[in-house]
């Protein structure tokens, strides 16, 4: 790996001031787990890394609003999130997803902000956060803005962050009695990046599904909503709609063959796991402990 300089600003404002354009050679580093994989073979060769570890503690904290909404600072490690009682209470699907996200050594250093800013589709939390209608907080030289998580991803490894912008945190709105689940499928080893991740969230009106959110990761170029699945399920009883939802998902998702499986196989997986993730959500407790 090429040697690089390391800056350690004490505030978010200073960090933003240091980070230049994408081609300036000055790049931010949070946990660095993904960054190092790109720097070791020389795919990325920054002159200077701006470490975000020293910025204000608020960006490493998890805060709970009165209604059960969560703010999770971008520098919170995945392991802190996994062990957080507040996350487990208000968004148990996040805790479940984290337990099998890579391995504990990675979770100990990887951060929520880095996980999202990396823009790699083969990650677990983007589809989960999309299904939960979470928002990303972004700060830059021109101030702050918020966008839906689903609007963060543009194309493979490309996000809608402007150069000089940093993710500062994520808010997960109060889930009330909504039911959610996430299922992933790895094909090479248990702690491999997934070949497919599927998340779903909905309210139950008796046994009818309302306000459905479905999202896919890993198998597609970017994590994204599966609107045809949402339509297929909306206002239906789950038992009546599983097959149609699976077929809709397999038809909608644009998948490619790669080292984790052929496109044909991935479509079969999407069909099967769409039904399973909906059933898993039906069986899950709404809120509360996991």
């Amino acid at each position, binding site marked *: *790996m090429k*040697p690089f300089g390391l800056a350690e600003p004490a505030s978010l404002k200073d960090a933003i001031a240091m980070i230049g354009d994408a081609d300036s050679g000055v790049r931010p580093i949070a946990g660095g787990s993904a960054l190092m994989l790109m720097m070791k*073979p020389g795919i990325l060769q920054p002159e200077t890394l701006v470490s975000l570890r020293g910025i204000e503690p608020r960006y490493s904290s998890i805060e709970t609003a009165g209604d059960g909404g969560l703010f999770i600072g971008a520098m919170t490690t995945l392991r802190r999130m996994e062990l957080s009682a507040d996350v487990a209470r208000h968004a148990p699907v996040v805790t479940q997803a984290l337990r099998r996200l890579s391995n504990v050594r990675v979770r100990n250093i990887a951060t929520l902000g880095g996980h999202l800013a990396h823009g790699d589709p083969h990650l677990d939390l983007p589809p989960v956060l999309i299904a939960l209608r979470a928002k990303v907080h972004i700060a830059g030289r021109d101030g702050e803005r918020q966008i839906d998580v689903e609007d963060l991803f543009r194309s493979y490894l490309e996000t809608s962050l402007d150069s000089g912008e940093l993710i500062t945190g994520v808010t997960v709105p109060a889930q009330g009695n909504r039911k959610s689940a996430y299922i992933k499928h790895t094909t090479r*080893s248990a702690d*491999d990046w997934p070949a497919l991740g599927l998340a779903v969230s909905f309210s139950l009106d008796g046994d009818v599904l309302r306000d459905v959110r479905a999202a896919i990761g890993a198998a597609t170029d970017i994590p994204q909503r599966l609107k045809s699945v949402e339509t297929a399920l909306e206002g239906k009883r789950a038992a009546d709609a599983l097959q149609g939802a699976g077929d809709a998902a397999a038809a909608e998702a644009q998948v490619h063959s790669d*080292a984790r499986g052929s496109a*044909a196989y991935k479509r*079969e997986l999407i069909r*099967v796991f769409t039904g399973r993730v909906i059933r898993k959500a039906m069986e899950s407790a709404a809120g509360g402990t996991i």
Partner: protein
Amino acid sequence: MAGTTTTVGRSFPRMEGRAKVTGRAEYVYNLRLPNMLHAKACRSTISHGRIRSIDTSAAEATPGVHHVVTGADICKVLPEPFYGPAFHDQPILALEKVRHYGEPIAVVLAADPHVAELAAQRIVVDYEELPAVFDEVEAMTSDVIVHEELKPAGTFADLKHLAGKRDTNLALDYHLRHGDADKAFAEADRVFEHTFSTQQTMHTPFEPMIAIADVRNSAATVYTSTQSPSFVRYELARLLGWPESSVRVKTSHLGGGFGAKVYVKTEALALALSMIAHRPVRLALTMEEQFYTITKHPSTFRIASAVDKNGKVTARKCEVWWNGGAYADIGPRVTQKSGFTAAGPYNIDNVSIDSYALYTNRPPAGALRGFGIPQLVWAYESHTDIIAREMGIDPVDFRKRNILRNGRMQAVGTVVKDGEFEAILDELAKRMDWDKPFDRGSGTVRRGRGVAIGFKASISPTTSSAIVAVNADGSCIVYCSTVDMGQGSDTAMAQIASEVLDIPMEKIRVVNPDTDVTPYDMSTLGSRSTFHMGHAVRLAAADAREKLLALAKEIGLPEGHNTPVPELFVRKFGMSAGAIIGSANYIPDFTPPNYSTGQSPNATPFWMSGATGVEVEVDTETGQMRILRMINVCDIGKAINPVVVETQISGAAVMQLGFTVSEEMVIENGQLTNPSLADYRIPGIFDMPSVMESGFVAADQQNGPFGAKGVGESGTFGVSPAIANAIEDAVGVRITKMPIKAEAIYRALCVKQGRELSDD
């Protein structure tokens, strides 16, 4: 030899355990020498081609670069720069041609490793790309020729006839004929034939290969993470034309080896670079570079059996093609030494085996924990299971009807002695409750179970030498060149010396291999150390014990005296001084096989065997397979250290599990696409079977040291076919290609249901 023992047979903690877990163990990778330069290689980006030119100007112009070295520069210091244990076919740096992706072409030397790396990236190689061959069966008849001429090393008498052979990719063919297979097939009630294949994998030692060479005037010192210090000394001395006493090879504990670090790997290049730079040179590979250096043979195995109506196998025909990659390394030995067991641990009167070592344009293949045996067992135990199922015979029962028992002649012509093949199969069946009903699951989750058994002969003939010194204070030092690469050999050797000399373990030290200090050993490979070096240490310790008795007699002590050892030295030398030195060479008896028939009445000093049973669960909607339970039972003779034996068995089984279900080197368009742990997936903790047992049967290797024999590989033998057999038991599909991925199972299920999944 197996009488009552006090130290041997007890589970002493590993001697190096505390140093390792506290981060204080010595590894060559951590060594730094004063005034040292770092070497970084520029490697081939194609699989086969002629080198038109190498432009080193930009690299040379990089500030901080000391030297840029090409193959032509190597020839100036080592005029015949070819190495290899079986064939002298591998150039230290590519000359004229590259034969595999990742082959080293040039090297940059700099005091700063980052400068060396950057400059190496600035070397521009112009190639005339040539067609390449990657498949071992195609290589038999391909127009693509990897080496224009075969260059066997002089060390192996049975390879001499290959010298000068041209225009072939066949490095070695081995043939065995036992009985009359053609006649038995003609008369058979049933005939079965199947073809199986395995993929290219890598050892992934976590301490990558590393050598630091320091050549000064007429002496060379090489610090290296090697399993073969004596061979490295021999080979470097040969390249230099120097006596072996002028080459010193030192090693430490290894961060894993598994066969990757046998023979010469980084050492010859480091040596040449130090000669050019006149400074110590450190050549440390990355994990990525290990994929370009040595791998496990891909293989294709066509196997046919003739069976009578009682389920007795009357004949077997085996054709095995071994994909040795671009350089032979020890591949020809795999072809032959493992080839003769290709029919399995069965009592078969008529056997025909043809085993072929092929050159291809893949990275070289060599020894990897099992020396070809796991590839063979994959085929013959899958095949055996299919036969049993098709004939409606219980798979364990079918194996027992055919199992090779002690006193019977194996196909190679050697009578089996102390080979507990049936006992490990019985113990496995017992531990698996094979006779009891089994829950087969329901709905989309189906369960099945399978067994497999494999065996291996020790590689012969090989020699080990040892020195055992008793110090004047009664403590003891063992000098041997067996490398402790994690298998616990230091502890085993200390236990043997302790047993013979009645010196407590805490007073025994085992010296790290250093060819100026520790005597010759063939290599740490093929599960040979416990048997061969165990004997050498035992005999050296016995020699020291005799000398102590002689010393006691000399100073006038009566027989049966109980004078403490330190007192003997004081009485003899007037103070605590002097030393008693015991030494020994050990080589077992061996008869080389006849070239045309492959027959030998004494092919091996001992037989190793391992049996695996698994229970699996298969998701019929996704093909996903989970191992609920895995049991490995081996014949290891008598254990020197039972806990170390158990961990050797489980470690071997987990390694083979990775090769079975996930690990695979992928070559696309002549490029290796996944040379990293991110994309070449080895098993993690969640890939382990939910329940795992490792055990061994009561046995005695009568010609072994204290009844012991080797164990490092036996846990690998049965794993792959046991899993495939269990999958068929669960869902009725047969996988014949490794690795067994979920998609392969799913696709087979689709075919079974009469619907083909598209290939996109």
